[in-house]
């Protein structure tokens, strides 16, 4: 099973969950960890460990981070380093998160298939309106 974790500096990830709910309804396999001001990297790492649990082929995670190189990204990357059961995508945005939830819901795709599908779609999720 692939579950999805959203994580950000401040409450962006929580807001993202609200927006997701508004568009595609309540999601079972969606979790959030936010990085608060004054929180140390160690505390953040503990939160991730609690949420992700023991990862395995039956417990895979796709993580969305707000920003490449930010602390949430840096810390959660420890869990994806040399671990094919965790993938991290940075530059979290609403259309790609929704796409991930929709594509992963039937639980038919492998994590690798899901990730390559999504990464192919990221470029069209941001652009200048021609209107």
């Amino acid at each position, binding site marked *: 099973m692939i579950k999805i974790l959203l994580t950000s*500096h401040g409450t962006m990830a929580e807001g993202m969950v609200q927006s997701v709910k508004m568009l595609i309804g309540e999601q079972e396999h969606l979790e959030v960890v936010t990085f608060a*001001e*004054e929180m*140390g*990297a*160690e*505390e953040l790492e503990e939160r991730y460990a609690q949420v992700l649990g023991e990862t395995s082929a039956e417990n895979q995670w796709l993580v969305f981070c707000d*920003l*490449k*190189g*930010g*602390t949430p*990204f*840096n810390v959660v*990357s*420890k869990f994806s*380093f040399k671990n094919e059961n965790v993938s991290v995508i940075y530059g979290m945005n609403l259309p790609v998160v929704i796409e991930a939830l929709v594509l992963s819901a039937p639980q038919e795709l492998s994590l690798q298939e899901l990730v390559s599908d999504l990464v192919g779609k990221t470029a069209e999720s941001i652009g200048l309106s021609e209107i």
Partner: protein
Amino acid sequence: MQVGVFRIDDRLIHGQVVTAWIANADADTVVVADDKAAGDEFQRTLLQMATPNTVKLQVLTVEEAKALLADPDAQGRALLLVRGPQQALELVRAGLKDHTINVGNMNMKKGKTKILGNFWVFPEDVETFKDIYAEGVSAEVRAVPNERSQDVMDLLKKNGLA
């Protein structure tokens, strides 16, 4: 090699550094002087990943960084990052004395005293800052460039630690 900004940050390269300090330092290279990171494949991979493609990255031991900073042929302008005051002191003692050291994040840990939200110190950190000031070098706490600069020694004195 010129140093644009000399910063203590226990998170090394992260959001504040990527979004604000590289530009503030007008740096073409980020130099991380950290024995732990230099010897750790994960840390090195992560630091490379965290560094924007527009700047170079060197992850060095403190000894290697001393050699690089002393090398008259080394070109470029660096944002120099160390994990804590001890590594900063080593570089100061090696001759890097013409910068106010920027303290970005020294985060909460058991046994530390809180000075500011992003500035927590062990008793030995206080001693190390005293040694840094004794070398004629000062330090300021400032997480991001547009924040107010606060002198480290003033803050330590205000909190009865120095």
